[in-house]
């Protein structure tokens, strides 16, 4: 008993949330370290450079998003990486200490230290050998696996078409391996080799990949692209189910119309994922059937598919019961009830901008962040080319705008992908004095 009492304070401390763990968005892998579940402190926005605006370069913009801060809703840091290479998506390493950010045009990957001081991310490495090492170009999704980053790419160095693959780098930024998205796989569905997002379910040893289009298309002006029937054929129509351990494709799923972001339900025990197809404007459910076979089924339209609203990002709730969907063309943010994932129902919609792209909700579902940019050459023109980051509160009935940062007015560029971090507090690096001189008694 005496020993137990002496250890009680330690036990209590250990049962408390991790000191660095206070906020998060639901679109991170739940298998990351320190998944954070309260009020986020900072929002990082990977921003495309615009010629003549500010320094014109791609940059990581950090915004203070803690309402208790004097700088709430303000840009507090900007790290310009130089040049314009179509800044697009980001992802944390497994320990969340580093944020990897990719560019779809020049295939550069920028590694920021966000663990030491997330209020001031520091560029610590630029990876430039992706095309040379893997043969792929257009690094899109950065998905953390233990000690490594799995990178989903959009295109290839050979013809800049849609055949592509996955590249693996270790957390130090060294190339490890690559895996082609299948272009031929036995089964009823024709494999097409396209790539986009990645999502792993470790308990099932299943990885899903989705598909988009190649460099020639995503770098083309959207109006020109949509008027080119031949180019419009060059979009992926499939998802692939992989044996994650063996990194072997097992099955190709028929999901026509460029299935983009993939979200596994975050609800404990759920074994299904959902995605949205951009060109056909549908929600798809990926789930095992009674025989254990993975199947994809379109389960709901998003808006009027005939009008091509172009669903882009999705954000699933922490309990897996609802899903925010942004549609680029009509500038709407929609909420679907996923209580029955086989029959999602739209329960809310609001125009949140002239064009909207990424949507990230906080873990508690009370805050929804929206950005505006899709791709430099796909964004709208003229007065419709609004570039912003907006925060909305969600009370279960209404999205209410709390603040907006005008990225054009601020001279920043086109706001694209978002990631949350939290202020580290109450921790120190291990070092000689840090632990050698500590006051706590040894056991």
């Amino acid at each position, binding site marked *: 008993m005496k020993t137990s009492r002496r250890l009680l304070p330690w036990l209590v401390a250990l049962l408390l949330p991790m000191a660095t763990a206070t906020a998060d968005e639901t679109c991170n892998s739940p298998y990351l370290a320190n998944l954070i579940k309260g009020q986020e402190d900072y929002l990082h926005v990977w921003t495309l450079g615009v010629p003549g605006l500010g320094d014109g370069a791609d940059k990581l913009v950090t915004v203070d998003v803690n309402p208790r801060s004097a700088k709430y809703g303000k840009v507090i840091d900007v790290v310009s990486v130089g040049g314009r290479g179509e800044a697009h998506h980001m992802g944390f390493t497994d*320990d969340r200490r580093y944020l990897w950010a990719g560019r779809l045009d020049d295939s550069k990957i920028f590694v920021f230290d966000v663990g030491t001081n997330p209020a001031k991310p520091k560029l610590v490495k630029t990876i430039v050998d992706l095309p040379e090492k893997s043969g792929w170009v257009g690094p899109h999704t950065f998905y953390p696996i233990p000690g490594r980053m799995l990178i989903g790419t959009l295109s290839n160095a050979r013809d800049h078409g849609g055949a592509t693959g996955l590249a693996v780098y270790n957390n130090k930024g060294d190339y490890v391996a690559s895996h082609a998205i299948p272009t031929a796989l036995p089964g009823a569905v024709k494999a097409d080799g396209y790539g986009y997002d990645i999502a792993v379910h*470790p308990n099932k040893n299943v990885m899903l990949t989705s598909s988009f289009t190649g460099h020639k298309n995503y770098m083309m002006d959207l109006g020109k692209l949509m008027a080119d029937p031949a180019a419009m054929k060059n979009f992926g129509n499939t998802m692939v189910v992989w044996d994650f351990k063996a990194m072997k494709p097992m099955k190709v799923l028929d999901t026509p119309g460029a299935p983009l972001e993939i979200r596994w339900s975050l609800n404990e025990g759920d074994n299904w994922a959902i995605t949205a197809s951009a060109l056909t404007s549908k929600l798809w459910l990926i789930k095992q059937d009674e025989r254990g076979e993975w199947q994809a089924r379109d389960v709901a339209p998003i808006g009027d598919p005939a009008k091509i609203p172009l669903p882009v990002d999705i954000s699933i709730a922490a309990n897996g019961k609802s899903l925010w969907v942004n549609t680029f063309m009509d500038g709407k943010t929609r909420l679907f009830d996923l209580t029955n994932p086989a029959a999602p129902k739209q329960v809310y919609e609001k125009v949140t901008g002239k064009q909207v792209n990424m949507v990230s909700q906080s873990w508690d579902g009370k805050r929804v962040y929206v950005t505006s940019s899709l791709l430099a050459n796909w964004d709208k023109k003229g007065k419709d080319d609004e570039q912003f980051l907006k925060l909305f509160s969600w009370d279960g009935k209404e999205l209410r705008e709390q603040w907006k940062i005008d990225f054009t007015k601020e001279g920043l560029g086109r706001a694209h992908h978002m990631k949350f971090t939290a202020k580290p507090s*109450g921790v120190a690096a291990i070092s000689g004095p840090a632990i050698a001189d500590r006051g*706590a008694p040894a*056991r």
Partner: protein
Amino acid sequence: MRRRADVLLCGALACLGLAGALAAIPPRQQFTVPAPGSYRLESIQAAADGAVLESDGTAGPLRRYTTGKVTLLSFIYTYCVDPVGCPLAFQTFSDLRTRLLAKPEMARRVRFVSLSFDPTNDTPTALRHYAGNLAAPGSPLRWHFLTTRSAAELRPIVDGFGQDVSVNVDAQGRPTRFYNHLLKVFLIDARGRVREIYTTAYLMPDVIFNDIQTLLMER
């Protein structure tokens, strides 16, 4: 044998008066593991090197414990009770130890290493007490409990493996006894190359056992 491993785990926690309070929480495995040798484990990075101390006080380079055999290594601290941290690593190692000891020829080609985050508390003497019979030199499967002379000697090893760790501080800014770290277990081939890394969600004994066999099948 499984019961014995559980008893050893409970014994280690009982010395802290915490047995039964915080059971390790393993991930749920809902799949059949690919057969050994049916897949390839990529070379992820070189295992870090540095100066370490064995629980009998012997000093030497870490590479002595990461080459020549297939090695399963994790960082621990002896009084960690995070159910998805060190106790889970201990439980997983104990499970694998039982499986490997059932195949002594295989066990002789494998070693386990538990390397402490806390050289101040986890001295060789403390580790010897913690390890008990698990570190018996005569076992076909050697399990080494290592520490370092100082945090300064530990730091490059931790960094080399890519193992994040920080220590909580109290209101006065003094370090406490709680380490923040993402549990990582490193599978290292006989040439000292890290071939797989398991974090909590991926730490499944069936998978690790087949991964060990996969490396042992390599020529």
